[in-house]
């Protein structure tokens, strides 16, 4: 009956910070691009140990803020000095060095997509693998500790981007966050109509006699998810964010039912 808590920046991540090892590699960002719907470790440097706030070695100057300022000027490869063309710069094509994390690049940009909800998910995996072949920490084992740190961060962020964009609900929450609208996944359900509907469905899941029945409920949930996914797309396009949030709420609950079903199947 437990539920995975969203990686919420008021939790451990505010309490903890990664110690910048050799360089001040990015720390988490406490600005509005979060919370992410899934555990988004990408906002935290993954290469070194956690440390408590106020660690004297913490420089306070994060790469993220630095790169955000610079992203539209010139970005140079830290290794060979080559000037990148365009703002998307995860990997240097001329010396094959992995670049430090740049939080100003959003998930859609990573996948070369326009920032919109309706995307073709079937092309994501190929692009995801292309990135991993350039960025995965396994491939830079013999490189410097600094570059291994970059690889760990970049690769983790690409995993996150892939997971987020390939799932409609996560993608919806994410694209809203890019518009500055945060979704509170923990909020209590207040719409009595939706509440009774959800309770009813849950009861049906609890009492389902066999897997056939469960499968049936599952396909009903899928239909509802598809429906509300379309509603979200429309609302979002018209920038009707209240309506969009409502669709997300619906999707969240139907999604949870699906998760319950999968557990029982």
């Amino acid at each position, binding site marked *: *009956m*437990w*539920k*995975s*808590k969203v*990686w919420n920046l*008021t*939790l*451990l991540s*505010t*309490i*903890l910070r990664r110690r910048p090892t050799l360089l001040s590699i990015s720390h988490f960002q406490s600005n509005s691009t979060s919370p992410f719907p899934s*555990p988004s*470790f990408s906002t*935290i440097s*993954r*290469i070194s*140990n*956690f440390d*408590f706030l106020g660690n004297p070695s913490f420089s306070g100057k994060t790469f993220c803020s630095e790169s955000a300022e610079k992203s539209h000027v010139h970005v140079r490869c830290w290794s060979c000095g080559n000037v990148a063309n365009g703002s998307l710069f995860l990997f240097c094509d001329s010396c094959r060095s992995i670049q430090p994390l740049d939080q100003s690049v959003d998930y859609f940009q990573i996948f070369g997509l326009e920032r919109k909800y309706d995307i073709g998910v079937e092309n994501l*995996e*190929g692009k995801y*693998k*292309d990135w*991993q*072949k350039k960025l*995965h*920490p*396994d*491939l*830079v*084992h*013999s*490189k*410097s*500790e600094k570059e*291994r740190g970059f*690889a*760990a961060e970049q*690769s*983790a962020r690409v*995993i996150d981007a892939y*997971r987020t964009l390939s799932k409609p609900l996560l993608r919806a929450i994410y694209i809203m966050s890019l518009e500055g609208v945060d979704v509170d996944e*923990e909020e*209590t*359900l207040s719409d009595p109509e939706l*509440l009774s509907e*959800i*309770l009813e469905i849950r009861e049906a899941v609890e009492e389902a006699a066999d897997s056939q029945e469960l499968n049936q409920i599952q396909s009903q949930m899928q239909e509802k998810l598809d429906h509300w996914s379309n509603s979200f797309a429309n609302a979002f396009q018209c920038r009707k964010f209240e309506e969009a949030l409502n669709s997300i709420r619906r999707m969240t609950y139907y999604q*949870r039912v699906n998760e319950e079903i999968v557990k029982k199947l």
Partner: protein
Amino acid sequence: MGMAEPAYTVASDSETTGEEKSSSAFPEIAIGIDVGTSKCSVAVWNGSEVELLKNNRNQKMMRSYVTFKDDIPSGGVSNQLSHENEMLSGAAIFNMKRLIGRVDTDPVVHSSKNLPFLVQTLDIGVRPFIAALVNNVWRSTTPEEVLAIFLVELKAMAEVQLKRPIRNVVLTIPVSFSRFQVTRIERACAMAGLHVLRLMPEPTAVALLYAQQQQQAVHENIGGASEKIALIFNMGAGYCDIAVTATAGGVSQIKALAGSTIGGEEILQNMMRYLLPDSEILFSNHGINEIKSMGLLRVATQDAIYKLSSQTSVQIDVDLGNELKICKVVDREEFEEVNRKVFEKCESLIMQCLHDAKVETKDVADIIAVGGCSYIPKIRNLVMSICKRQELYKGMNPLEAAVCGAALEGAVASGISDPFGSLDLLTIQVTPLAIGIRVEENNFVPIIPRNTTMPTRKELSFTTFRDNQIEVLIVVYEGEGEKVGKNHLLGYFKIMGIPPAPKGVPEINVCMDIDASNVLRVLAGVVLPGSRHPAIPVMEVRMPTVDDGHGWCAEALDRTYGSALDLVTVQKKI
């Protein structure tokens, strides 16, 4: 090696873990080692392809065993005598891959009691007593020591052939190995002077080889560049492992893993019990004659099982001594009936893996069956029939696939590149087992579910079980059981000094982090409502923390503390 020198050196555990120390301009190529329960092999990238190394008897597959006969134990790599004969004396220890990192309550340890050496248990959760009979005295040893002695020989063999010192290795391990077992493997490697660059679940090594072959096919314009899904079934003497992988452009994304401790050893034991039903009682005293009888029965049964792969019936004729003779014809149907449960378990593992990968059988492009047991007709048939196929993938040698994959990973992870793009490869791994903590009533709550892409970080919230509870115990387990007793204990630590509050009020956040080097860290913090700051300093502990002989179990905790230090999961809001 001189007579006075020890067979192995003991290095500190820390040497094998975490980041390696140097990165020179010309990295040495890590070798791939597949330490099987019964056989072992070594391979290395030779600059253009993977090459299996041979011992001085021209063998690519070497028996995984060590004989404690003289002052210096010797293993199956260099030893000139045949394994079969030594097995009869009680001096040879084998099956260490099945025994390593297991306590004496483990069913796998119990099923090892009829091996022709000593495995004794007290059933209290400590290491089993394992010993070889040397000059009528039981010489105790450990699976780590046996493995280390064996690895020393493998290392020496590879060094002679490659004419360079060997330090870095990529080892294959079973999917079902716990992180504690992994530390034991790393310990054995450290004792042998080897540094573990990577540990790969066996079917993922096969997946990497498959990715390379697919990439090659694309280059030669045989196949398309689109993604291909493969099911990999790998069953050796000790373990049965399954993986579903999606491959494109030389990248193998593992979609799901499933593993179990069933293997050829279980099939062999079922057959021995079938041929001589009270063998375990007959041989339980482990006298020299009994050991000899056990060894003879084992050799004869093994031989019969091999033959049943190619013939439909086999004549078993063996004199076990002590007026015990077995003379029997066994046909393939009998064999399949005797091992019905094993085959059913294989089927359910495949189904589970496909389900976890969310892959339909019609989407599986290739079915790869490797490992010694893949020669058993029943196994081949069941794998094909689940996937509704008429044939298996043909591009691999079933006994060499895993070690070849390990050697490829060794080259890739060492930073070697190939002008023809043959090393343009990557495996994206997932967690083979769920990792979580114990909550009230000995329930297990996964925090990182199994089949999560690594590296990863996940967090869950918990709360106190009692009013004014100032301490909670975080007990970390790995496994799939709903109760912690079914899972592997990785370690535990206490959070102390929680400000007194009614039960359910303190928010205890437990975060688990697996980094790029596959190191697991567990963090726990406490937040009180209305505060954005931690109530007490956050604890971060690297796992596993348990060491040998941890006679610790859920019952002991219950007995000592009851529910005084329990955690409760935070109920989902509706």
